[in-house]
């Protein structure tokens, strides 16, 4: 494997180490402690928090902002897909195998859509005065690096399908592209636990706490009146 690949793997290890330490930190502090008499069902509350409460119809942040919500969902799907693709590319590099051309095209198409969504959200953050007023460097950079990671993934998929294997890059003009991809990945992994992308962990914790809170008080799951 080329050196940039090793750098990205090291960055990934750094990232995982941080995220796991955050997770352990949360777990160590334990479940919420509440001495009041429980009125509802916390398990049902937590389940609802992660299911029904996330449906677009349940949240103004979704149904009042459908274009942004949709773009956000697609962008996040693209991010997860990109992370899985990174693992796949590393495996391909190690095992000297290639991605089937059809699969590569499908992935590239999906990432094209999701990266466009990322660009849309980024533009909105630049253009919308309110949004810009609550934003800092981290908000812009986190979006840019994720979008760039997806775009780099598209390039890799289009360049390295079963036409050639990833190891070919070491001896071909595709080396530059491979380096670009792995460097972007490395920057993303280094940034992830520092910037707001760490909500990858805290999002789930937030849904848990919210489900516990509303479940305890019998607000969630909601009653039909």
């Amino acid at each position, binding site marked *: 494997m080329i050196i940039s690949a090793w750098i990205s793997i090291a960055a990934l290890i750094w990232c995982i180490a941080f995220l796991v330490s*955050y997770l352990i*930190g*949360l*777990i160590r*502090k*334990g479940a*919420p*402690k*509440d*001495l*009041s*008499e429980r*009125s*509802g069902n916390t398990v049902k509350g937590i389940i609802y*928090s992660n299911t029904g*409460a996330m449906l677009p119809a349940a*949240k*103004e*942040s*979704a149904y*009042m*902002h459908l274009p*942004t*919500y949709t773009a*956000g969902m697609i962008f996040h799907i693209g991010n997860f897909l990109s992370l899985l693709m990174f693992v796949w590319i590393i495996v391909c590099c190690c095992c000297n195998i290639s991605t089937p051309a059809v699969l590569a095209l499908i992935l590239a198409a999906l990432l094209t859509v999701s990266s466009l969504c990322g660009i849309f959200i980024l533009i909105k953050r630049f253009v*919308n*005065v*309110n*949004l810009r*007023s*609550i*934003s*800092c*460097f*981290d*908000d812009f*950079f986190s979006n840019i690096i994720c979008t760039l990671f997806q775009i780099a993934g598209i390039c890799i998929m289009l360049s390295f399908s079963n036409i050639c294997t990833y190891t070919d890059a070491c001896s071909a003009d595709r080396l530059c592209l491979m380096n670009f991809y792995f460097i972007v990945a490395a920057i993303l992994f280094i940034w992830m636990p*520092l*910037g*707001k992308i*760490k*909500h990858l*962990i*805290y*999002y789930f*914790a*937030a*849904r848990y*706490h*919210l489900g516990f*809170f*509303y479940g305890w*008080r*019998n*607000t969630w799951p*909601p*009653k039909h*009146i």
Partner: protein
Amino acid sequence: MDTITKEQRKAALDLMKANLASDSKFQTHLNACVRCGLCATSCMYYIAFKDPKYIPGRKVNLVSSIYRRYFTPEGKYFPSLFNARNLDAEMAEEMVDCLFGGCTMCGRCVKHCSIGVDVSYIVKKGREMLAVMGLVPKTLQATVDAAINTGNNMAIPTEEFVDTIKWMEEELQDEMGDPKANIPLDETNRHIIYTLNPREPKFFPLSISAMAKVFYAAGESWTLSSKYYDVTNYGFFNGNNEEAAKIAGYLYDETHRLKADKLVLGECGHGSRASRWEGPNLLKKAYDFEMTTALELMAEYIRTGRIKVDKTKNQTLCTLHDPCNLVRNGGLLEEMRFVVKSCVANFVEMTPHGNDNFCCGGGGGQLAMSEYNERRLKIGGIKADQIKATGAKIVITPCHNCVDQLMQINHTYKLGVTIKTVAEIVADALVLPDPASPHDNPADTAAETVADPLHTDSNSSK
């Protein structure tokens, strides 16, 4: 504010450090916000003013930026990249303005947050930091001080309170045509100790007699305390947990002193929350007596047939305002509607309502902070529009703080509606037994209830 001292800063940061060390919820919500800004349109301050300083995510960011600055390496070394801010005078001033003066802690944005950040929880934590820095708005602090020093937040002298109760008792006896109908004070070994919002004896004594009428009809064994009857707890809003615990302790101790089986929280949203949900946590012990809200108690009376109501007695079109602390943050969505719909013939919901309802605008201690009156009434315009759209002539709400704000909204926006508590609506719908009949006399039933522990147990709400 010119400056804050090192001691003030240290006190706030020490508190944050202690919370971070023990509370996964605090750590979670400080790190979860992605500043998408989609919460803006769920906040009545933002809707009313269109000022980005009211975006809920920005309020979270005020507290989380301090966290990043002092408790994360990236914020320590690269503060500008991560919006990590120093806790200085400018920051403290901004926090006071937004966390005290720009949030009712209604939690509407929480439910609608794309991530699930508990904004009102973080706002509360921010207020706690300001409290240890001695930066609680003076008006709010004065309300808390009154409650601590006199037992009630309006500093009503006991003699005045007792006089009001005696007056209401005479009214009750006249209305019921029963000299045995009473409003017991400081009686021991009663099933229920009932609590009030001090606004009731001060401004709305008829709501006391309405609840007394319900108790009378139910043949309940109950009492009021002449000293510690205040259900409110503004310590929940000023961020001083020691003071909040002290106020919560008053009701806890009084329930024990009067040897009551059950503490019933009068119609007050935040007061009910402060005792029912926060009280045990503030006092760091589970309560060893039952506790319920007046709303749940009335629902139980109706369900079990202990009181009979006739909805045709209330023909005027009514709507319901859901107090945030009883519904979204208290889970009483159904109970409230069960009681109200049992007692009124014509009912219409607001849009939105229930867990999505807008705050009246008086929550979060806003009614106690006169410096923010203009803002409070402006955000109340949203509620005014909601009420207007229903066409209702009566607005019912089981919260005296909401009543107060709704009355001001009614006046300001010329709505021409009547504001009533749930007890008042239930009292109006009561089908009272004939006091002449010995078997129907609720006052006698009350005496029997005390004498019969089995009967008492069967009337427990939980």
